[in-house]
Each structure stands twice: as structure tokens, then as C-alpha cells.
């Protein structure tokens, strides 16, 4: 057995290129796959920590007028019998500039099952409550504090502004970037005096809100895990694609290695090695390769994940408000799973090889023609399988068409996958057919005819690499168009929504004074006050049905003045835009696309919302796009929101006359009302931040996309290089017949360039179909918004050029070698034949 294995492996000593290609394929495939899995595992761990006790989420009590709560107010509520607990929230900045969330709690009143399972004498509670207090922190945050895990417990890191944190205690169950300490210690660090950020109570502990307060129930809000599910599904799909493309390479390499060892295998069989032993030896070879490739792949995957994670974490933070740790946290299942996927993939890719080795005919000789007839059967099978995939895709599309929008994320991926599979499977039969047709057409031009016939002979080996290239090109095009289209739409939308050059973000109780003061300023032409609140959507009345539910939603109030209404983007209105806005001013509402999609709402439907003074039933007159917002939102006029829901002001946009001195107004506002520096922001700043968030959202998508294309190009290059030697065998006789070398080299380049061009051309419609699947099905289900289909001809041209460029590059090296080969070597090829 050992001898058989050594003999088999000796092949790779003579052809190290093949070994490199095999390992490269395995390495790339498992690196991309395991990198993405590492990111997902880390994010899930972070969610799990935040989710762990979601069952005990809390109701919140806030002042109706938005004013700050104070300590004696809290005592008064407790003494009136309300089981509320104070929370103090703020940010602290570490010396390396990281912003950490600081939360001060009162463990004595915080509702929790059996909260104080300890006596008042417990040393840990005393340490938490008394100087020097304690900081509970997850190990993820230690890097930001400049600490190693080993010396963290008990350390008292100094903050950027000079304050010191109380001694640290590690709590791995806490979400990343969060510090928890006693409210007394937090109040000192934040210098917040008697102020409280919010009051919380156990769910349902308060039956009604006391006068002057609003009660927000911790109802059916989705956990970050659910919200981000779609994002991770997107990542996983990309990872799977990378794995498949990588395995294409592996299969090509394995096929080649077997083809070249057929003679050796026959010799071994003739020498008495049983078929079973041979298969076992080949399996062992696969296992060996799999373990090496898989392990290196996983190691690189972890590195890749570490590189991408900050962007992923930032995206999840800005899109969903979910905190994800910046350091990888990988359970043992991850490592086993990664290796299992690599080995499983390799086995799948190698199963064909094993099957052929097992049925090896001892007597038959390796013949290209025999191979070709086998390939014909294979082409038929591919066409049938491709048809099957297409049928599945079509079926899924039909099914999806009958589903309400927003459903069927998995089915959407299914459609895209089926489309890709069908196209990939149809590519070789299609090419074979085209070549056959062209050969027929070129029967008067012998050299062209030869080239086409030769191409048919090369097709079996090239087809896999071409399939990989097709899949990668189409995906690249699809994802590229989706991201580009989103970018165009998003920036437009941002321009339409941000009409004021200045935005004020002041404490809620200052807006009245600011508004009065601004009313007399000549340079201010319009004041756009916004208000925000939260409530529960209780019922929906549509012409067809009426249903009740309990859904937490955001309320957003805007001032529908002359500067806002002409630009504010609307997707869908009841009548025309002017009448929608007129109704809006009189108390009708608009809903965002996310809410409309999730609850299947359209203009004309009526919503019943919980309001402080009884429920409010309001009519929807329009749906508006609201990119980047994970939750459902109801929009109404600011003055209506104030009157009906007692919502506090949240910001104010200032529309200024031309030639107004922005800087002077800004300074006057800051000094007059004692506002902090970041209380007034200009439009450019807000746009910059929004664009930055957007860019980060797609960094990973783009990075993976480019990597996938690179892998596919590598696959093509590898397959062409692998057969470079045999190409010389094919070309030498033509040279001997008098065809000049230059022409032969050109012919060679034209063959491959043509094949790549055909693949690239097929990739374009496929890419458009994928874009459609992404924007119209997957995005709606994943994010709740639909994007217009944008196509970018420039990008398509680049894609096409990439395909041809890669093919020419790959063909150039063998061509160059042929060009440089001495006549003697070429003649030797001839005699060899």
C-alpha cells in the first residue's frame, strides 16, 4: 500500500505545477469559505451575548416633554410605588480614541429574576457598590483600553480625558465595547450630577404610565440576531460561491493528474495491485491533499476574517445598531466544520477521478479520441442537468411571484444559484455546438478549420475553467451593478432628504427658545423641526381585511414646508404628490418602504397606533424609501406628531437665504444657547458620514467579489499552463508542414481569446439576471427596500475585457514558449508523436 501510494505521489514530483495548482485551489476555496464562516461565527457570538437574556428585556419610562430625568424624580416614582430602576448611559473615550459605551446601573432595583441571589453581605455586591467600585467589561474591549487579558482584572485604565475607570472585572458574557458599573461610579466619570438617562421596569410591571411620562413596552422588537440574519446569509452565499469556484480548480487539476497517470495506474494493475487498493491509495492521496490544503486554507481564512472584520463590525453597527466584537471568537466546531467542508468538497471534486480509477480498463490505451467520445456523453449529461437547474430556477421564480414581497430570501438565493448552475452547465455544450457550427462554416479555410477542431479537442479540459470564469464574471457583474445601482439611488435619496444646509441637535427642552430666536433672524427662510418617538402599531385596516398586531415602530415628524415637499422622495402615493402632501399636513401619514413591505401596506390603508391619549387611527397616503433603516417607520407632520403623540423635538434643519453667513449664524447659535460643538452640523458633514457608512457596508461584498474573480482567473491560467506541453505536441506538426510560428502563436491566442470572449458575452445577460435577482428579490427580503435596476455598460465592458485579458495572459506563456522553442525541440515533438 505504501509503495502504491509513493508511486502515485511520485507523479507530483515530476509535475510540481499540478501539485501547486491542486493545493492552490483547495487553499483558496477553504480560505474564502472559512474566512466568511469565521466572521459569521464571531458576529453570532456577539449577538448571542446581547441576546442571552432577551427574555428579560425591559419596559422604559421617559418624560413626555423629553426633559432629563433626575434622581429625586426617580425617588418620588419609587415612593409612589412604581418599580422603576435608573440607568445612566454615556460614552467614554479611551486613550487610543475608541468610544466605549458606559452604562451605570443600580443593581439593587434593576429588575431581574432573583436579582440579588446574594445577601447584603456578599462581598461581590459590596465591591460593586462601594469605592473604588468595579468596571465590568467584556474581554473584547481590552485592546481599546490598551490591556492584555492577563493583567486586565483589577487594572484601572486612564481615559482620554484623564479620568480613571474603576478596577476592571472581566465578564465575557457582556457585549463588546460596553462598560458596566454602579451608577454612582458612572455619574462621577460622566460628571452627570443628578441626571438619569432613562428609567426601566420589568416587562408589564407598570400597567400604565404615570402622568407626564411615556411608557415604551419592550414588545415584539426583533433581536439583532434576527435583523442581521439576512446580512449573514448574503455573506454565506458569497462564501459558498468562492468555495464552488475553488473546487472547480481542484477538479480540473485532479482530472489532469489522473489523465497523465493513467499509464502508471494500468502498469500498477498489471503488476497485481487490486482495483480496491488502487482506489484506497487514491483516496488516501486525496485525504492527504485535503488535510494540507484545508488546514492552510483555514489558517488563511482566519487571517482574511481578521482583515475584514473591522469593516463587517462597522457595517453591522451602523446598519443595525448591533455591536460585534473586533476580535475573532471561534468555537471548536468552527475549526472542525472548516476542515469538513474542505474535505467534503475535495471528495466531491475527486469522486469522478475515483470512479474512473475503479473502472479502469487494463487493456485500453489512453486516447484523445476515446476521451472525446466520453466527453460527448458528458456534454449530453451537462445539458440535461443544466435544463433541470433551469427548471428549478423557473419554478422558484414562479413561486416567488406569488409570494408577498419581502418573503423568500432563501428562494431568492435559490433562483440565483439555479441560474448560475444552469448557465455554467450549458456553457460547454453551447461552446461545443458553436464550434461544430463554425467548423462547418470554415471548411474552405483549412487552418481555421483545424483551429476550431483543435478547440473541440481542448474543450474537455478547458470547460471547467471556463465554467468557473463564467460564474465568477456573472456574479462580479451582478454584484457590481447592485452596489453601483444602490450607490446612485442612495446618493440621490440623500440629496433629496437633506435640503437644509444646517442642522441643530440640541437638548429637547431648548427647541422652543431656539425656534423663537430663529424666527427673528433675517437669514433664516425656513425652520424644519423634526420630532421622534416610538409607539406600537396595533391594527391595520385595508380594503380587504382588518387585522390587529403589536409591532414596535418609530414615529418621525417632519415639517412639510416649501423646501422639503418638492424633493422628499416618494415611491407610491394615493393620488398625486400635492394631494398626498396636503393630506399629510392634515394628519395623514406616510410609511417607509420597509414597513410597507413587511406588513403589505399600500396607500389608502389605515393604521391604528397607540397614543398617550387613546389610540390614533390614521390613513396612509404615501410610501417613501428609507434606505439604511432596519425598522419600520411612520412619518407625519411635526405639529401632528406633537399634538397626537406628544413627541419631543429631535432636530431642526435651517433653510437659509442665499448669501447668508452660515458661520456667523452657527457661532451665534452656539454662544446664545450654550450648545456643544457637535450640536450643529452642516449638510456636507452629514452626507460624508452617511456615504462613509454606505461605503463600509459594501466593502466586504466588493472585496469578496474581486477575490472570487481572481480565483476564477487563476483556475483558467492553471488549466492552460497545465496543458501547455501538450499544446506544443499539437502545434509542432503544423509548424513542420510550413505554417509560420507567428501565425501559429496568433492562432493559439485567438482560440483562447475567442473562447473567453464567448464566455464573457454569455456572462453579461447572466449578470443582468443576477442583478435583477439581487435588487428585486434578495434586497427586498433582506433589507426591506427595492432598488431600481441600474446597468453600467462601462462595467460590462471591463468585465468582458477582464475575461479576454485573463485568457490571453494565460495563453501568452505557452505561446511564448512555442515561439522560443528550437526547431530541434519541435522536430523532437514530431518524432515523439
Amino acid at each position, binding site marked *: 500500500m505504501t509503495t502504491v501510494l509513493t508511486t502515485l505521489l511520485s507523479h507530483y514530483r515530476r509535475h510540481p505545477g499540478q501539485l501547486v495548482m491542486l493545493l492552490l485551489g483547495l487553499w483558496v476555496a477553504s480560505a474564502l469559505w472559512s474566512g466568511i464562516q469565521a466572521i459569521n461565527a464571531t458576529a453570532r457570538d456577539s449577538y448571542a451575548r446581547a441576546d442571552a437574556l432577551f427574555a428579560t428585556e425591559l419596559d422604559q419610562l421617559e418624560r413626555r416633554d423629553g426633559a432629563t430625568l433626575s434622581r429625586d424624580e426617580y*425617588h418620588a416614582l*419609587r415612593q409612589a410605588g412604581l418599580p422603576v430602576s435608573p440607568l445612566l448611559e454615556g460614552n467614554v473615550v479611551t486613550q487610543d480614541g475608541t468610544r466605549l459605551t458606559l452604562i451605570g*446601573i*443600580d443593581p439593587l432595583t434593576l429588575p431581574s429574576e*432573583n436579582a*440579588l441571589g446574594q445577601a447584603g453581605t456578599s462581598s461581590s455586591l459590596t465591591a460593586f457598590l462601594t469605592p473604588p467600585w468595579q468596571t465590568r467589561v467584556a474581554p473584547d474591549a481590552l485592546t481599546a483600553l490598551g490591556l492584555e487579558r492577563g493583567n486586565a482584572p483589577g487594572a484601572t485604565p486612564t481615559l482620554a480625558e484623564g479620568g480613571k475607570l474603576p478596577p476592571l472585572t472581566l*465578564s465575557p458574557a457582556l*457585549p463588546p465595547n460596553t462598560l458596566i458599573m454602579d451608577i454612582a461610579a458612572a455619574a462621577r466619570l460622566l460628571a452627570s450630577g443628578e441626571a438619569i438617562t432613562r428609567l426601566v421596569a420589568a416587562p408589564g410591571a407598570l400597567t400604565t404610565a404615570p402622568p407626564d411620562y411615556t411608557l415604551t413596552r419592550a414588545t415584539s422588537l426583533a433581536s439583532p440576531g434576527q435583523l442581521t440574519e439576512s446580512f449573514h446569509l448574503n455573506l454565506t452565499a458569497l462564501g459558498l460561491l468562492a468555495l464552488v469556484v475553488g473546487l472547480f480548480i481542484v477538479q480540473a487539476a485532479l482530472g489532469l493528474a489522473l489523465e497523465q497517470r493513467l499509464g502508471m495506474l494500468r502498469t500498477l494493475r498489471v503488476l497485481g495491485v487490486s482495483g480496491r487498493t488502487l482506489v484506497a491509495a487514491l483516496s488516501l492521496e486525496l485525504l492527504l491533499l485535503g488535510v494540507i490544503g484545508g488546514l492552510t486554507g483555514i489558517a488563511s481564512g482566519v487571517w482574511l476574517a481578521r482583515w475584514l472584520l473591522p469593516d463587517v463590525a462597522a457595517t453591522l453597527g451602523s446598519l443595525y445598531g448591533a455591536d460585534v466584537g473586533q476580535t475573532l471568537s471561534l468555537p471548536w466546531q468552527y475549526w472542525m466544520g472548516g476542515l469538513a467542508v474542505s474535505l467534503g468538497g475535495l471528495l466531491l471534486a475527486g469522486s469522478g477521478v475515483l470512479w474512473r480509477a475503479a473502472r479502469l480498463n487494463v487493456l485500453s490505451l489512453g486516447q484523445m479520441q476515446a476521451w472525446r467520445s466520453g466527453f460527448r456523453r458528458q456534454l449530453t449529461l451537462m445539458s440535461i442537468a443544466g435544463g433541470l437547474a433551469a427548471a428549478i430556477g423557473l419554478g422558484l421564480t414562479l413561486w416567488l411571484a406569488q409570494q408577498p414581497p419581502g418573503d423568500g430570501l432563501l428562494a431568492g438565493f435559490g433562483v440565483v444559484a439555479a441560474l448560475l448552475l444552469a448557465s455554467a452547465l450549458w456553457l460547454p455544450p453551447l461552446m461545443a455546438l458553436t464550434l461544430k457550427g463554425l467548423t462547418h462554416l470554415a471548411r474552405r479555410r483549412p487552418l481555421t478549420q483545424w483551429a476550431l477542431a483543435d478547440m473541440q479537442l481542448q474543450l474537455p479540459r478547458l470547460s471547467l475553467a471556463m465554467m468557473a470564469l463564467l460564474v465568477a464574471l456573472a456574479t462580479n457583474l451582478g454584484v457590481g451593478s447592485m452596489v453601483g445601482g444602490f450607490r446612485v439611488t442612495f446618493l440621490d435619496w440623500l440629496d433629496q432628504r437633506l435640503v437644509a444646509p444646517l442642522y441643530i441637535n440640541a437638548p429637547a427642552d431648548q427647541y422652543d427658545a431656539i425656534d423663537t430666536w430663529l424666527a427673528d433672524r433675517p437669514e433664516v427662510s425656513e425652520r424644519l423641526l423634526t420630532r421622534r418617538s416610538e409607539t406600537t402599531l396595533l391594527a391595520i385596516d385595508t380594503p380587504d381585511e382588518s387585522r390587529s398586531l403589536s409591532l414596535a415602530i418609530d414615529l418621525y415628524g417632519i415639517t412639510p414646508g416649501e423646501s422639503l415637499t418638492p424633493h422628499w422622495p416618494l415611491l407610491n402615493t394615493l393620488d398625486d404628490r400635492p394631494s398626498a402632501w396636503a393630506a399629510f399636513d392634515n394628519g395623514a401619514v406616510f410609511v417607509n418602504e420597509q414597513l410597507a413591505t413587511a406588513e403589505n401596506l399600500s396607500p389608502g390603508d389605515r393604521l391604528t397606533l397607540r397614543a398617550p391619549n387613546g389610540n390614533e387611527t390614521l390613513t396612509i397616503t404615501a410610501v417613501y424609501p428609507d434606505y439604511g433603516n432596519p425598522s419600520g417607520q411612520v412619518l407625519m407632520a411635526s405639529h401632528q406628531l406633537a399634538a397626537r403623540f406628544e413627541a419631543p423635538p429631535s432636530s431642526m434643519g435651517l433653510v437659509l437665504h442665499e448669501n447668508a453667513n452660515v458661520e456667523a449664524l452657527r457661532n451665534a447659535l452656539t454662544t446664545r444657547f450654550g450648545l456643544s460643538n457637535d450640536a450643529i452640523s452642516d449638510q456636507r458633514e452629514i452626507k460624508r458620514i452617511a456615504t462613509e457608512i454606505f461605503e463600509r457596508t459594501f466593502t466586504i461584498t466588493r472585496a469578496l467579489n474581486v477575490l472570487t474573480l481572481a480565483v476564477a482567473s487563476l483556475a483558467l491560467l492553471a488549466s492552460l499552463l497545465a496543458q501547455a506541453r501538450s499544446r506544443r505536441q499539437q502545434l509542432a506538426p503544423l509548424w513542420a508542414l510550413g505554417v509560420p510560428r507567428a501565425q501559429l502563436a496568433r492562432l493559439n491566442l485567438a482560440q483562447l481569446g475567442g473562447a473567453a470572449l464567448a464566455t464573457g458575452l454569455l456572462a453579461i445577460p447572466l449578470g443582468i439576471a443576477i442583478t435583477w435577482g439581487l435588487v428585486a428579490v434578495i434586497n427586498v427580503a433582506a433589507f426591506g427596500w427595492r432598488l431600481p435596476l441600474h446597468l453600467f455598460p462601462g462595467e460590462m465592458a471591463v468585465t468582458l475585457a477582464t475575461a479576454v485579458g485573463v485568457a490571453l495572459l494565460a495563453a501568452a506563456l505557452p505561446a511564448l514558449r512555442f515561439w522560443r522553442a528550437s526547431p530541434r525541440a519541435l522536430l523532437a515533438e514530431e518524432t515523439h508523436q
Partner: protein
Amino acid sequence: MTARLIRLVIMSLILPLAALSGCGSDERAEQSAGFAGLGQDAEGFQQAAPNQALTFPDDFPHEHAAHPDYRIEWWYLTANLEDVSGEPLGLQWTLFRQALMPPSERPEPTPWAADQLWMAHMAISQGEQHQVAERFGRSHSQAELSQSHDAQAGVVASPFHAWLDDWQLQASADADDDAFSPLTLTAYSGEGASRFGYTLELTAEGPLVFHGEEGFSQKAANGQGSMYYSQPFWQIEGDVTLNGETKAVSGRGWLDREWSSQLLDARQSGWDWFSLHLDDGHKLMAFQLRGGGDDSADTEQGAAYRSGTWITPQGDASPLATDDITLTPLATSTVAGRDVPTRWRLEIASVAIDLNIEAPHANRWMDTSVPYWEGEVRVNDRASGEPMGEGYLEMTGY
């Protein structure tokens, strides 16, 4: 919104953690420092001693207020009541104070900073029912306290007001500023059908009673003890809510006031404490601390240390010496997985009484952060079996 919610959720994470990390050390503390750490070393605190004799009326009302320089203190009310249909009903309301550090280590009284930890227990018992609730609070003894909204919990002497949140014992509206009677007690817990609690009017029908040597009550043979006085003569009227239903009640109550810095000897594991209203108008307080007595018992903990006070209907108190009291457990019941003596024999030689004391319902376990048994008892003459009175029994360390 989501981010905010996540943050809220985090909150609930920390407490179980704190509880878990606290558990192990707690158990050790209980073993080495008596029940609930009450035998912990009290260095830096003021110590209760015989030379701090309480005198009436000079020391009052200010002794009713908190003594933050001492480590522990309580305001402890038990009541044996009857509802309108004659059904007996027991209740308890206790406010515990514990200093978090000796006076010299107190933090500055910045907002929220605390040097006092408060804990309140309430219980209502009727038949097989036993409803218990617990609250916690914090305060700083040096913070300005001009109105009750300035602190979550506290006790002021004049006009008397002891509170933790809405659980409050305070001088009735028509009482004089310095008076300790009549008092109004309110405490409620739960919502809807599970709501329970009480609003009671307490009127003292006798004087305050000082235990031990003019209020210094020795608790161990080594001389450790506490300052301890009672008001055993409460007449109580009011309303009790149980299972969401409210009914009128009336009966007798007993309020204990006790503060010290080291209540137990480190060798003492718990106590059995009786406060009895006898039908002839006498009151009897008797306790035994298990361990910490003289070395007559051949155990590591030492013999039980007993003490008590015999109170005449007029309020004259005679301290009872440890060898004057014989206390014998007669039967145990299994409550909350523990064997607790629920029938006792109590003999006081000097006043020639021999009593059978029995808890009619054994399930009076207080499943609070510091668990103990606290419930109503019936008193019978041991020889004749004649009913002689009622009272409350508290047992800790089982």
C-alpha cells in the same frame, strides 16, 4: 432603537453574574462568620456596649432614627391579627440597614454614592398561604435629607418616618412630632390578582421596653451584644390585601428595634427567637443563639446562649438570665428542604411557666436573599394544654 434595547438587555446580564460570583464566597462567609455574616469582624464601627444605656425620655425620639456608625440595624414589626370572620392572620414588616463600610471609609456623598444598604421584607400569612416580598435600596448617611424624595430609603426620628420606596412606617397625620404612636404602616407588592399588602394604623397601649442591661442585650458569653428595645404593646387596625382582595383586620403587634456592629459570635450559627403575647397581658421575649455560650457544652461552638425579658402588662421589664431559660425542640417539620423545629417547650424557672409553643403552619419560610423562618405561633400551658396566648417565632441558620 435597537441599539438602545440591546443595551437594556445587557443590564439584566450583569446581575445573575453578580449573584453567581457572590454565591461561593457567601457560603463560606456564613460558615466562618455566623448567620448572614452577622458574626463578621466589625473593626472600624462603633460597638454596642453596656455603657450606652438607653434612657427614656431623654434618648427619644432620636434613637428611633438610623445609627449609621453601627454596622447593622433593624425596625422589625410582627403582628398576630384576625380578619372580620375571626380567621387568624399574621404579618411581618422589616426594614434592615447595613453600613457598607466603617465611617472612616465613607465615600463623598456624590449623587448615587452610598454608604448604607437597605433591605425590606414583608410577609402576610393566613392558613396555608404565605406571601413574601423583598426590596433593596441605597442611601448615603451624610447626604442632605430634607424630604423623603432626597433618598430611596431612610429613617428619620421626628416626625417618625421609616421608608424604602413606597413601603413606609410613619407617624400618623394627627400624631405629635416627637410621638412614636400612632403610626401608619403601608406596604404593597404585586399587581392585580396577585397583589398583597396592608395599610395599618398602630396604636401603642404601653411603654417602650428596654432589654438586657438598660437596652444593651448581650448575645454571647464573650460579652458581645446589641442595643435592643421593643414596643410590644401595639393595638392594630387596618386593611390587608391578599390575592387582590382587601379585608379589615385587627389584633396585636410587636416592634423590635436593634442595632449593633457585631451581633453574633463567629461561632454562632443562628438563633431561635420568640416574642409572645400572653392572654393575661404579660409579654415574653426569649431567644437562644446556637453556639457562643459558655463551654459547658462539649462542642466546638460552645453551648447555646439564651436570654429574654419578662414584661408585665404595665410594661415593667425583668431580664432573664441564660440559665433561667430552658428551650427544647419537640418536633421538626421539613420546610423548603430543611428540617426546622416547629414545636418547642419553653420553661422560665423564675416566673414558673412551662409552655408548649407550636407553629400551626410550618410553611413560613422567608425565601429572601437571606433566607429564614418567620411565622405565627400558638402558646399552650404544657401541663393543662390550655391556650395561653400567641406570638411570633423567628428561626435562622437552618
